[in-house]
């Protein structure tokens, strides 16, 4: 069953001679429960694609369906609510809120939704990610790997349908990177979620069920040609 589908997704910047086609007519569909890696070189448009998939950025043209819902037909308010319920984000720079401790950072999207925090679930999540003992620590008291694990826990906290990870290991050393990806993979499997990860690291991409390649804003087929 498809959890995500994009139709002729385009994102253009500028005009005339300065027109930049960051994403240029991407058609992509992802099955539920899969781990998909989007691979591309720097400036290929992979982050822009991920942002549009997650509803952080509006496309110039085209549509994004998550759970069969056209997310860009929603207004900002509804999109924000949809995002916090259905999409989990993991960023390269962790993007934790510096004044909130680990627990507060993880439960932040649930609190935004004015829902009661399922303490048992969050604690289990933290144990899975091995950060339970850091519950009361502030982000600046954690290592990079620990911060990224907190970010993963935050992404999973609302039990989203899809987790979008933008170069989650970009700031980590190779050993920690491997550890984090394994944890991410293990978690989404455990909680039956779909993972879309951007990376330019071929080794990490190989750990995915499927690899999608992007170049100059276009997806490439198995032969490496734009499709």
């Amino acid at each position: 069953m498809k959890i995500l589908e994009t139709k002729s997704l385009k994102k253009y910047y500028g005009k005339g001679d300065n027109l930049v086609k960051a994403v240029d007519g991407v058609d992509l569909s992802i099955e539920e429960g899969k781990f998909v890696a989007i691979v591309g070189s720097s400036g290929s448009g992979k982050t822009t694609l991920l942002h549009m998939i997650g509803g952080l950025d509006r496309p110039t043209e085209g549509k994004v369906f998550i759970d069969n819902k056209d997310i860009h037909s929603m207004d900002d308010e509804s999109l924000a609510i949809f995002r916090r319920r259905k999409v989990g984000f993991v960023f390269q720079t962790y993007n934790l809120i510096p004044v909130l401790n680990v627990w507060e950072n993880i439960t932040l999207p649930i609190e935004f939704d004015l829902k009661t925090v399922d303490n048992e679930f969050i604690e289990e999540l933290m144990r899975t990610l091995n950060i339970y003992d850091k519950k009361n620590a502030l982000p600046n008291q954690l290592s990079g790997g620990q911060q990224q694990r907190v970010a993963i826990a935050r992404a999973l906290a609302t039990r989203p349908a899809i987790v979008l990870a933008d170069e989650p290991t970009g700031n980590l050393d190779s050993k920690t990177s491997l550890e984090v990806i394994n944890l991410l993979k293990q978690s989404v499997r455990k909680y039956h979620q779909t993972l879309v990860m951007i990376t330019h690291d071929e080794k990490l991409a190989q750990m995915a069920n499927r690899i999608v390649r992007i170049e100059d804003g276009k997806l490439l087929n198995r032969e490496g040609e734009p499709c």
Partner: protein
Amino acid sequence: MLKYMKIAWKHIKEYKKRSIAMILSIILSTFLIVTMGSLSESARVLQVDDMIQNTGRNHVFYNGLSKDQIDKIRKEENVKEVANSFNYGTWKSNNGVNVDILTGEEKLLYMLDTEIIEGKYPTEPNEIAIEGWVLDRLRLPHELNKNIKLSSKENGEKEFKLVGIIKNRLHSQSHDFRNAFIAFDEGKLAQDKESIETLVEFKEGVTYKNEAKKLGKAIGIKDKSQIQLNKMLLDAMGELEAVDWNLVRISLLLMLVGGIVIYSLYSISVLKRVQEYGMMRAICSTKKQIIYIILSEIFILYIVGASLGSLTGMLFTYVLKGSKMAIFITEAQYKLDTVVISKFSIGLAMLSALGSILLAGLRGGILANKVSPIEAMNKATQDKNIETKGRESFIERFMNVQNKVSYKNLKRNKKVLIFTIIAMAVGSTFFMAKSFKEELHGRSREKLESIGDKSPWSEILLNLDMNEPMKNGYTKEQLDEIKKIPQVENVFYIQALYSKLKLDKEQLNETNGENYIKFMNEKGFYPDMNLGDFYIEGDTKDSVMIRNVVTGLRDKDLEYLGKIFSILQNEKIDINRMKNEPVAVVYIPKTKENGAPYDEKAKGRYEPVLDIKNGDKIKVTIPKEGYAKGIDNMELLSEHKKYSSQYVDKEFTVIGIVDELPTQYRDQNVVAMPTVPYVLISENMFKELSGIDNSYRAVRINLEENISKENYKAVKEKSQELSEVFERTLFVDMYEYNKEQEKSSITDNLFQNAIAVILIMISGLSIYNNINYNLISRTREHGIMKSIGLTKKQFRKMIGFEGIMYGSISAVFSCIVALIAEIGIFVYQVYLFPLYVFPIPTYTKGFFIDWKSFLIVIAINLSIGYIATIGPRRQVDKIEITDAIRSID
């Protein structure tokens, strides 16, 4: 250096908004200091001018000089003007008005701050010049060359020609001091040098006090009493006090507010550029070079801001010319005719602006140089300082997560918070304290008026002269005629008797009492006026007699006294007992340890000079026969021994001690100043004591606010007629003066409010900027929260909450500081120094909270806090979430 200036100039141009805000803050700060400093100095000059009107322009006067000595003075380099005069005598006019005639050189008018407005100054022996209002009092037409017959005890009857009309001296008019001027007689210098007074004004720039003494020595004066300094004028000039603490206080307040604003604005401006400085350092700029760039920028901003600020300050001060204002350093009202641009305040403004901007620059420079270029470029300097506390605070438990983030951020920016609060508290406290004072005076006045008295603001005053025999006075019937004139609100009148109190020495309140009688004898009871001793040894060695005044009150006034007691002292007095029994209410002056009633600077607290309590017996003694025979009071006052056989005693039981003497119970003569004890009794007892009935010596007439011109004229005419019944009667018409005072006080309020608005505005600017920076610097954080599902609505609420939090904390702090200040003002005005410091006692004895000003300050603080979030909110709203997150990458 030029290259750094160029870079700095580029910075300024690049960040136009920020640079304009910086320049604006310097302008506002210097403007504020220059304006207020100049106004304060102008006010001081006006105070000096006013004092010149009251006491004359001369810095010193010498008496008893010879012609040679006067000639020597004229030749002295530092002497600006000299005027000689002597008393010709007292002219007793046909309508009972006494006028003191001065024989003086023409320069005397200059010294007395007046001039001829019609005709000329008398040059011939039979010529005379008189002020317009004095002619009115004498009922003489303002007609030049008219002959006036003048009779004086000293020179008999003589005819003079009116050759000049002199400009009214308002001070003399409001005190009913009447003078006429005749030509100076040079011959007198040789004949009777003892009575000559030589008034000397020195040139500007010299120390007048020293110069007066130096000159005295130079012309050979050996007796120090021949040199009389014009102390009141020198005091107004600030020459008698080494440090002008008032100016220092105002300056410090201004420096604080101005400094905080500039400092916080520039600090933020530099902090915002830490990234840029990091980049410069990454491309090999040295730390020194960064500092040079910052200094260059400071230099440009400072020169532009400080010059514009000073200029606008000067212009604004000129614009205020002609307006009426209250001086900052006294309670009096002045019309701002003279505008002085204070060099001191310009210097102060320049220094304070430079100091604060340099301090901020230095802080920014140190920070830019302390962090590594990479950190600076990433702006990753903030998160490092965040600390954790194990548990969340109590208040956080009641907050949703967005508000918690705001609250934690607020706690994280403690310095910003402290600056914000201080800046706001200064402006708010100024406004609230001012508002409280106004309310306190308003309530006090209301209270007084609610018990039927507005005597401190009476329009017309009649008071028999102290020479006038005690049995003389106006009758009820005469005074009722005034009361019958429409729009006369009420007429207060009292009986008064100059008497002596027979006391046991034990009844003197220790050091205060002992020093008091000494002080009064030597200085306080006008030893030059031939009033006799204030204190006389009693019949036994343990007893003593001191001067006092007995006031006989009508039934209506007794009731009023009862009300005053219940309001002022929360006590009840038995009025009915007062009507029929020899019981009295006593007013006892208060002094500090040195015994001088008006000495604010003396050590210790004000204490009553007599140790008299309720139930004690006091003995009043009066020369009953002397009063009945109508002997001149001065004679009776000065010759105690001669008339001692005529004194009779009457004992009264004290049933109340009034802390402050209600104004309408006062006799205006110096012998009855509120520095002497008063014994308040009923009319019945007054009659029994003195045998005097239906004879009132002190009258106060209150007019309705909107009295017509005709009715006012009728009251004035009737009052003047009454004033002429007895010679030398004090007749004061304050109608126009009171009206002017009221207008002045309205303008003054506007002016004071304007200062509060400027202070709040300048503090508001600082708060706005701080909150603005704080929010903008967290754009990334906001982006993150939006990316994980924070809706626009939630975001707006969150930001709004943060602004309101700043506003609330600042409001709470301001309210606390203001409340402390208000309690201080209240205690000072009502309990510590209720008497002698303020012209009218404060009748509100209970502390109150001026809710209006509190609500205004809370509303202003909350509004500024909230408004400050609108800009950043819009700015952050405009930024795409993806850009916001990327702002750290």
